[in-house]
């Protein structure tokens, strides 16, 4: 066991609070920086996907994991970001301003969706966001003069400061840079008053309000921030795939994002990364498993969806805190060995709560 002595309030404001953390994250970053040197371009491309999905995961994590608002239409923001980026860069807007504009446009869409969130809650909000997802998908398919309709749209390689980033490694570094900045931003918010207000709304709206938190403002802010991050991921996604079409931003993608945050662990920044890694690694594992399965099963078209569904159910039932929650348990077990007790992470049943808002 180890004890951490605290002698200054500023210690708790640091991003790395445990003594060894700084070293481990520096090592991780160093590994990620040198990865293109030794890993093949296929793996670098996959790692790039993990980073893009991690940004989107951070976005949904802010909304669902920290503010407690459920969304099953988040692929729509990915679509808004992707199409905005494609359209802007095709009009000659440089990469960085286009990226910021795409995120801003997506945030604006987030505000529009956030407005009903002030009135509806829980499952009804999920339905409202689901409807929004379908509307955006339909708009992308029908607004042919801008989006190219169902035929899709080709997107060029990003051009930053005169360089064309068309190799997987170059794009990987770009995604890494955006991802690190997005993560730092989210971590900053979470250690400040804004992040705490989100958490307050998630856990008890009535008492958040009596603490002086403007529910409407913070819920809208959370939606906008979440949409901006997912839009940012969408913009990178467009450059990554070089070709976008409306069906990439449908309900399937939204469910993938939801799967990402639940499997990763709701309410943890680590969870967004673990979930993103899961989402990218899983199809590869399924492909590998196909060689071992009887052909009737291996050739079935819905195999991936079935496996995803089972995994989601298994996590909801057995590990609601996701992969990150599991990791915390393992870490605690090792730290306390041999004193870990069975029920240490078991949640107590909530007491009766007083009157809720609406």
């Amino acid at each position, binding site marked *: 066991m180890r004890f951490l002595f605290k002698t200054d309030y500023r210690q708790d404001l640091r991003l790395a609070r445990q003594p060894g953390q700084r070293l481990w994250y520096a090592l991780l970053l160093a590994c990620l920086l040198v990865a293109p040197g030794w890993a093949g371009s296929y793996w670098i491309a996959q790692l790039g996907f993990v980073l893009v999905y991690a940004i989107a995961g951070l976005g949904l994590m802010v909304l669902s994991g920290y503010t407690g608002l459920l969304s099953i239409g988040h692929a729509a923001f990915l679509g808004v970001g992707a199409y905005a980026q494609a359209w802007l860069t095709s009009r000659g807007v440089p990469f960085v301003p286009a990226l910021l504009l795409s995120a801003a446009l997506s945030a604006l869409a987030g505000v529009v969706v956030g407005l009903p969130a002030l009135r509806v809650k829980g499952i009804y909000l999920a339905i409202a966001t689901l409807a929004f997802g379908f509307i955006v998908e339909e708009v992308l398919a029908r607004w042919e003069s801008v989006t190219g309709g169902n035929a899709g749209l080709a997107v060029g390689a990003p051009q930053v400061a005169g360089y064309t980033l068309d190799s997987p490694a170059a794009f990987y570094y770009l995604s890494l840079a955006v991802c690190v900045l997005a993560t730092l931003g989210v971590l*900053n918010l979470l250690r400040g*008053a804004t992040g705490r207000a989100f958490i*307050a709304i998630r856990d008890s709206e009535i008492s958040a309000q009596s603490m*002086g938190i403007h529910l409407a403002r913070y819920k809208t802010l959370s939606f906008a921030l979440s949409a901006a991050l997912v839009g940012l991921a969408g913009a990178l996604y467009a450059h990554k795939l070089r070709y976008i079409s409306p069906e990439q931003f449908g309900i399937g993608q939204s469910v993938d994002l939801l799967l990402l945050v639940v499997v990763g662990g709701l309410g943890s920044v680590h969870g967004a990364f673990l979930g993103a890694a899961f989402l990218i690694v899983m199809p590869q594992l399924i492909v590998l498993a196909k060689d071992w399965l009887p052909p009737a099963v291996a050739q079935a078209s819905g195999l991936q969806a079935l496996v995803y569904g089972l995994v989601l159910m298994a996590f909801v039932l057995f590990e609601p805190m996701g992969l990150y929650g599991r990791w915390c348990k393992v870490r605690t077990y090792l730290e306390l060995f041999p004193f870990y007790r069975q029920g240490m992470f078991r949640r107590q049943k909530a*007491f009766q709560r007083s009157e809720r808002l609406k």
Partner: protein
Amino acid sequence: MSHSQSDTLLSVRELTVRFGGVLALDGVSFDVRRGEVFTLIGPNGAGKTTVFNLISRIYPPTGGEILWLGEPLTRMPPHAIAAQGIARTFQNIELFEHATVLQNLLIGHHTHRAAGFWADLLFTPAARRSALAARRKAEEMIELLDLQAHRDALVAGLPYGVRKVVELARALCSGPRLLLLDEPSSGLNVEETEDMAWWIRDIRSELGITVLMVEHDMSLVSRVSDRVLAMNQGQVLAQGTPAEVQAHAGVIEAYLGTVDDVASLRRAA
């Protein structure tokens, strides 16, 4: 009344609330003076918590008004009440369950935050100063209410008695002028109730915070309150010192029934 108008912090005037066919409050009036502990008592359903919820603006009154330092509170949005210097606790504890005790207390400081969204996003020096100020306030309250051992514990895992104290600490972190305590001793054992009585006195005398409280435990009420208001079925029965109210015939009747009722019970037995 011997006290001048400037001594009145909160003034409730002819407050009436109707939920459908139920008249929850029927013309309730009282004044809370600066620096006193004012207690609302009464049987279940008397409308005590309703008064609190009206002050917190959780729902609007049907009639009457609430004046805070002479200004009508009923025109303010619910989230603006805390910034006015009014903090509250809840009867059944409304803490942020999946956050630590410290985080809960820091949220209590929300109205005093000096940094907005962009400052937080970049964690500017202003955001850092604001976070440190919140932390200092939280630590003062941890010190006052002996919560050191639970600082980094998740609220979801804490025993009931400790949660009650955490909720009190969170309310104090907003630096209120008026503290609304909804049944501070409910669910507490004898020692915990004893501590609560001390703390309520400390809050009033050391921090100079006026307390408006709903409470059932009459021994606690008579030990800490300056004035008591007894209610029944949405109406005021009596008002005065704890001893005066406890001796009031209407109050005894509301709690125990009339002498005739008792006599008839005796006959039936």
